């Protein structure tokens, strides 16, 4: 997990802990899931770029 993802998740959890509204807590939970999904897709896209640039076909 990237540093930004860690930081975002921590901030969102802190807001969640002090949040009295169930609806807002749910939105913060879904935002954490979005942050994790963004992290996964960024990593996969970077890996794909690396893989395609270093493909043996191009050597």
């Amino acid at each position, binding site marked *: 997990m990237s540093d*930004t993802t860690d*930081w*975002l998740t921590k*901030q*969102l959890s*802190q*807001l969640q802990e002090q949040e009295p509204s*169930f*609806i*807002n*807590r*749910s*939105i913060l*939970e*879904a*935002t954490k*899931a*979005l*942050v994790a*999904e*963004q*992290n996964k*897709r*960024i990593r996969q*896209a*970077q890996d*794909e*770029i690396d893989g*395609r*640039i270093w493909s043996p076909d191009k050597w």
Partner: protein
Amino acid sequence: MKTLILISHPKLADSATQEFLKTAGKSQTNVAFEYIDDLYKGTKIDIVQEQQRLIKYNRMVFQFPLYWYSSPASLKQYMDDVFTRKFVVANHLLRNKELGIVVTLGDAEAEFQAGGSEHFTISELLRPFEAFANKAGMTYLKPFVVSQFGYLEEEQKELLLVDYLQYVSAQMPLSLDNREKWLVDQLTHMKQEKSEDDQQKLDLIIGSIEARQDQLDDLKTNVKMIRDQEE
């Protein structure tokens, strides 16, 4: 974008699921609810008034528990009364709107497939609504299924709530991009009721999420460019 949720449920007051969904939906300013069963209590339904109401909304959602593999009778009655041939087919007054279905199940959703105890899929069972949307020139949205609400844990309910709110109020399709935009809108709205410290925190969170989405868009463009050069 404005959404009208039409609820058909003979025992609405007893349903914890409907109460949950309604409380959630009311948090959205562009979402309105109408309880069909109330329209049939006492006086005769005012068809013209109903039609006038419907045309103000971009998305219409039928919300009901599955009763013998269809909606409860009140929704069918409403459709037969309000969706006149003139309104739907001749004047095309529902054309280009979206039709969504929120269906609640007492059985596990996994049983609704070939080999499962219910044998037929939800998409198959809801085919008459899809056919209606097709005839009316509406965009039919993927049905939103809530199954066995009573067995859900707190965290599952939180995620269900957001999925439901996105189904009724976010831009379709529910891609990562559209979900991100919807969540940023919600966080921005949430900010209004927070302390100055928390507002700053939320601003940083929103900024960071948007920057990551831009980064992801750039990466996707690069991936596509490299792929296109390969073939």
